């Protein structure tokens, strides 16, 4: 692991992800948001009236909702400076050959086609506002699995989309959900028929290329009874001095006996505001698992949630956050026990370094009637140096008597003794630190498919390089 050349993270991010194409988009709305911009997006997409109305209604809600006053500082986020819709190309490929050369180069550099060949059932790639490539292996297609971008889904599967779209996260849920509902573009639509197990992951890759761009993808996953799917997303962006906004909405429906795992490895550049709403509903004996890794972005606000609707439903949220210099990772999870005999577990691991701040924010709610609910919350924070910060906001609301709720929070500092022990065996100080950090996130890394675990470790290593002054 330590044989790689030692590089400063910032420099390496620029080299590996920070490049940008000078591609001229075929259409963009220009900076700022208005009713006309929302209409224009809908027009460009040739949408049915119901979606256009949904957007416009959401836009009104967005205007009416105040900015959240809790959580990280969003005062520097200027809605007028964001470009809400950028269409990079007219074409959408099913094979990499069809993808425009410039964009293909981007994803080649990021290694996406190679990953697809090796170990993915399907891949989607979004570039600024539009998905430019989507492919699902034939064997899954034959079983009735649908994996397309959400715009295509609106056209080709209107009934399915209309039945679920916006039902899990309605526009009035929060200001950023409203914003997404108004200007959404791209994202994935996944439908897994009853009993079908998609054994290898589907992956979506999100890339912001343009300056000041907003990316507002919208993902909807429906897992029918007894099915299984693992969906993975990765995100990067070039480094600009001006801020970009990523505000996604992800809705997931897990029908009885089904299981959905949703994994995110987020590595946005540090000028990206990452304000995302993710929610799943799980029915009888269904299992929903969120695995959420936040390494990049300047500010993240993300609390994947699970609503446990029927007996036997289970929710798992595993969150890891790395807050380096200047970053504020405000992450956690939310579980609503709405039925008896439901269970959940939230595990949060955060690492703060330099001026970084990692906050755990979580809500566990047991509604009346949800007796015999079980929930366990565990938060572990690791501080790498004196100025690094961590805080915990665990909210627990219980309206039922016979429930089992556990909460544990730990803050640890990398101890001098531990470092000394590893150094005394010949490891350099930053190698020793990296090893301690990789050990700290190991419980999460081992939940990931091998390739993603390697990727996560590599990202953490990059964050750690040069961390010892």
């Amino acid at each position, binding site marked *: 692991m330590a*044989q790689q050349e030692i590089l400063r993270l910032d420099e390496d991010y620029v080299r590996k992800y920070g490049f940008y194409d000078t591609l001229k988009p075929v259409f963009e709305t220009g900076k700022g948001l208005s009713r006309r911009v929302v209409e224009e997006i809908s027009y460009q997409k040739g949408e049915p009236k119901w979606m256009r109305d949904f957007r416009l209604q959401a836009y009104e809600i967005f205007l009416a909702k105040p900015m959240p006053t809790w959580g990280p500082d969003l005062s520097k986020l200027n809605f007028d400076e964001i470009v809400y819709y950028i269409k990079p190309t007219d074409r959408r490929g099913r094979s990499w050959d069809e993808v425009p050369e410039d964009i293909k180069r981007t994803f080649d550099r990021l290694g996406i086609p190679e990953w697809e060949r090796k170990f993915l059932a399907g891949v989607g790639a979004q570039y600024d506002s539009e998905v430019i490539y989507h492919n699902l292996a034939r064997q899954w297609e034959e079983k009735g699995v649908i994996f397309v971008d959400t715009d295509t889904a609106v056209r080709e599967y209107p009934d399915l989309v209309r039945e679920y779209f916006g039902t899990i996260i309605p526009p009035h849920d929060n200001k950023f959900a409203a914003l997404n509902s108004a200007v959404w573009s791209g994202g994935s639509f996944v439908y897994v028929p009853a009993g079908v197990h998609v054994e290898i992951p589907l992956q979506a890759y999100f890339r912001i290329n343009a300056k000041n761009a907003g990316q507002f993808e919208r993902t909807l996953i429906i897992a029918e009874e007894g099915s299984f799917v693992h969906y993975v997303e990765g995100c990067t962006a070039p480094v600009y001095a001006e801020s970009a906004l990523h505000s996604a909405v992800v809705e997931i429906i897990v029908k009885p006996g089904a299981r959905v795992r949703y994994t995110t490895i987020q590595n946005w550049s540090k000028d990206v505001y990452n304000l995302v709403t993710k929610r799943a509903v799980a029915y009888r004996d269904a299992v929903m698992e969120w695995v959420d890794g936040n390494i990049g972005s300047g500010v993240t606000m993300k609390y994947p949630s699970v609503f446990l609707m029927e007996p036997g439903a289970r929710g798992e949220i595993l969150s890891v956050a790395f807050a380096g210099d200047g970053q504020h990772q405000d992450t956690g999870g939310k579980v609503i026990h709405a039925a008896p005999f439901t269970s959940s577990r939230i595990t949060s691991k955060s690492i703060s370094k330099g001026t970084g701040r990692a906050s755990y924010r979580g809500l566990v709610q047991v509604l009346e009637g949800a007796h015999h609910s079980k929930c366990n919350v565990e938060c572990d924070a690791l501080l790498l140096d004196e100025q690094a910060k961590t805080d915990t906001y665990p909210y627990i609301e219980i309206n039922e008597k016979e429930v089992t709720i556990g909460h544990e929070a730990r803050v640890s500092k990398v101890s*001098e003794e531990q470092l000394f022990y590893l150094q*005394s*065996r010949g490891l350099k100080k930053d190698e020793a630190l990296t090893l301690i950090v990789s*050990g700290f996130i190991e419980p999460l890394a081992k939940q990931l498919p091998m390739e993603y675990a390697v990727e996560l470790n590599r990202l953490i290593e990059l964050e750690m390089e040069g961390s010892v002054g």
Partner: protein
Amino acid sequence: MNEKKPLLEVRNLWVKLPDEEAFILRGLGLTIYAGEVHALMGPNGSGKSTLAKVLAGHPGYEITEGEVRFNGENLLEMEPDERARAGLFLAFQYPMEVPGVTIANFLRLAYQRRFQKEVKYTEFYKILLQHLKRLEMDASFAARPVNEGFSGGEKKRFEIVQMSLLEPLLAVLDETDSGLDIDALKIVSNGVNAMRSPERAFLVITHYQRILNYITPDFVHVMMEGRIVRSGDAQLALMLEEKGYDWVRSELVEAGV
């Protein structure tokens, strides 16, 4: 007979904690040549463990005076990892746990640093197994997190596994014998004895004479109040066992030290 240069030479070493007045090491001197085994004995609080940690480069101490040369180099100017790579090894009195980090991953890195060469994981695994076996530790330890959930004895044995793997020039064993039952003590001692060679030296820090029944020292030193007050051969350890430290203390008083 000692025409060659010493492996370790400690001269007039004064050490204290940064925010305290009192010195823990008070002008300590010690010379060790390659091939020798030295035992360092002394009552609690005499500064034995401090010496061990200062030699290994623990950052928590302030060295106000003195000189330490290791294999011709100025040891006090080296980082802990540089000392390790130069061939100094400390078997810790209280080995640290490193959650989530497997022994194999950790020691592969250590091995690569010590010998300055890359080694493939599969190849290293074979090497590691030999050393585990030597200390009668099960192969399954390779995949376990470093020291986590180990018994006291397992931790100590694992220290010697690391020593065996890293082939130091000088191994400092800080109370490796304490907390070991007699079987474990034999295994650990055998591990040390198997490594004795003309190129290698040992500094065995202990409270008790017991381990010296298995590892025969060339020299025994008694430490009190931060310096070595008496040195001798293996017989000295036996006398200490018999008469206790008060005997040395009273001798010192008589001698007017």
